[in-house]
């Protein structure tokens, strides 16, 4: 009886602790943040933002697995949709800036100073 339950439960339990996934997400997030803060090329900054968004997604999914409900998946879905919108607008801005300044380096874009 107890063995039955154990056998049925066995595939339920992940072999990898959820903590590992969370740590991976943290590492990914910090790498993305590093890219945002350090890289000069606006396009790479954008890619780093995508990394951060993916780290957030990973966290959502890890917790969804832990709680066993679909809310985390829904959140991840929304994050992907927002990321798509953000990429479209962001890249359009990069194009517009490149047209007017001939550069995509963030250090050349300092209009906030005025």
């Amino acid at each position, binding site marked *: 009886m107890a063995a039955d339950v154990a056998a049925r439960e066995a595939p339920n339990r992940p072999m990898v602790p959820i903590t590992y996934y969370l740590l991976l997400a943290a590492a990914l997030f910090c790498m993305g943040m590093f890219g*945002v*803060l350090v890289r000069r090329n606006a396009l790479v*900054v954008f890619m780093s933002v995508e990394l951060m968004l993916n780290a957030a997604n990973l966290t959502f999914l890890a917790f969804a697995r832990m709680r066993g409900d679909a809310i985390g998946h829904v959140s991840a879905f929304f994050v992907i949709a927002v990321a798509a919108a953000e990429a479209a607008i962001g890249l359009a801005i990069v194009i517009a800036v490149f047209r007017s300044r001939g550069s995509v380096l*963030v*250090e050349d874009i300092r209009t*906030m*100073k005025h």
Partner: protein
Amino acid sequence: MTLAEFLQVAPVPPEQLAPSLWLIIALPLLGAFICGVFGRMLGRANVHLVALSAVAGAFVLSVLAFWATSHTGPGAAEGSRRLMAYYRNPFGIEADFVRYALAYDYGTWFAVGDFRVNFGLSVDHLSGILLLVITGVGFLIHLYSTSYMEHDDGYWRYFAYLNLFVAAMLTLVLADNLVLLFVGWEGVGMASYLLIGFWYTDPAKAWAGRKAFITNRIGDFAFLIATFLLVLLVSAFTRQANAADYATAGSSTQRYQASLQEKGPVTFKGLEKLAEGLVDTGTDKVDLSTPIEAGPLAGYTFGGVMTAALLLFLLGAAGKSAQLPLYVWLPDAMAGPTPVSALIHAATMVTAGVYLFSRMSALLVLSPTAMATVAIVGALTSLLAALIAFAQDDIKKVLAYSTVSQLGIMFMGVGMGIFWAAVLHLVTHAFFKACLFLGAGSVMHGNGDETDIKKLGGLRHEMKWTWGTFLVATLAITGIIPLSGFFSKDAIFHGVHHNHLHGLEWTSSLVYYLGLVIAACTAFYMTRLYLLTFEGPRSKEARVEHAHESAWQMTLPLVVLAVLSVVAAVYAFPLMRSASDGRPQPIFENFLSPVFGAMARIAEGAKTVELDTSVPGMADYLKAWLVALSGGVAAAFLYLKFFPARVGQPVPAFARAVRRTAQNKFYVDELYELAVIRPVKFLSFILFRVVDALLIDTVAVRGTAWVTARVGSALRYVQSGDAQAYAAVMAIAILGGVAYALIQVLQ
């Protein structure tokens, strides 16, 4: 079918009409909205149509509601009268019905803890009669205004305000609790302010509006405190009362508590039960001399708190109804258009104080002290205003002081417990004073806005309709015998004379004899006003050669109101028989007896007021008539014979001094200036120098600016415009926050 049977079958039965009571308020409100927002687009004719039909609709609904309160169902025989128009008193026992009334509760307006206010409307004979006055006289004045304001470009604003006023006044009258009544109370105050300052480009008129508003605010403050006191009193009562108390009130413990839960503490029916519960029957725990055990009022007696609350209500009512010491705004309120003076500052709004005390008559009779104060304040105000009116030359000012004086007479009646006569005088006064004001407006309209009666005269032949109606209304207010004013005023004086306040018996005589003096004064100044305006030769200083009679829109209301001033006398005739002991009773007293039933029971039970039920005899009538006549004849002698003969001769110094004092309104405004306004201004000046100029301007405002500028110039170097630098700062801040949170969690 006799007339009585016809009147007892309402076209819309009460149970069908009650849920629609809100429409009475909503119609004028909608009119105000349409006129105010779209008025300029709609044009003059459409605005007139909207405003008039809104008030006419409210009038029709009011008639239906009023009719429904007397509904007894078809085929009701005299012996087995089936009462159809009633609703179950929420605070009473099962068999306790409020007769001749309909009510509807639209649910909770707001609730805070135990305190709850419902949006409940009710119509009984008291509020019903006021509904008719407000919408009926209101409609006539709207009609009159269409012609009076024909040359004014702000017509749409005017009609929006006027409709707004009607809506607020109807709210005041229909409310079944104190808080909703206060909404109407504030609403009429605001509409009054807007209309007094209607011609706001004239600074004096704008100031008059402000004066009215601020004076009223003092009274409203007292009103609010009184309401809070009553709320505390109700909660103290429910804590301390025993079953016998509730039995005295005609209720039971569970029923009363459940109704408090449902309706809140400030409904009039609940307060009425509270008043009945405070009557001492021997076995109950709570009566007027019981000290309150707990709460903010601990240590005071129920009766003491009740007196305090009623005196505060008196201050509130004095503000709205222009009594001492807050009457000063009303004469200045004549800065508004004349129809506004007729509607707001004569017929309806200023009677709100009388209505308030009539509505709360059950509470008022618990405190002879408060009643005596009300009566004496009324008498003194009335006398003072009448004396000032002697020497005023502005036609509207005379009428304004006359209004203050007449309101004082109503307060005398309320204060001495003769409520039905006070309400009757309210109604008749609404008719003849509105007629007088509208007549004055017609005179001004026909004479190039001349208001000085010394520069009028001889209008009798030039403005026949105005003259006729003005004469009727003057006779009515003077108290000449077959007109309504005589009967309503005499009913008050008779009641004042024969009612006695327990422990303060001397007030009866004092107020009565003051009343007779006032009656003579009234006759004098009104006759003077009439003679100088309409009789004699036309003044040489007149602005226009020949006055022209006004249009039908103006004369028709005058005629209707004049007719009403005559026929309203019927109400005071003792043609009915009392339901309890079969003695003859004036129609109006019989008519209002369901409303004032609780008041009479309490007065008898608590032995605070000895109510007299006799009917004035021929000797009383003769005395009152002689008093009125003597005043009128004196004025006629002075202004027709004496003064015309002495034209050009020097006036004695004494007479000149008296006249100057009266003309300057006994320097009351100056007294207030010296005693109140100057000190407040001085204090304000000190505060201005220390708080405003030093603390706020120098330290707070300029200091902040200085620090900001310095810090800004120092931080300017940080602003490099590099987005990543900003992001790095943000990241460090996040790091700090997260680390702090982590440390907190770990600990």
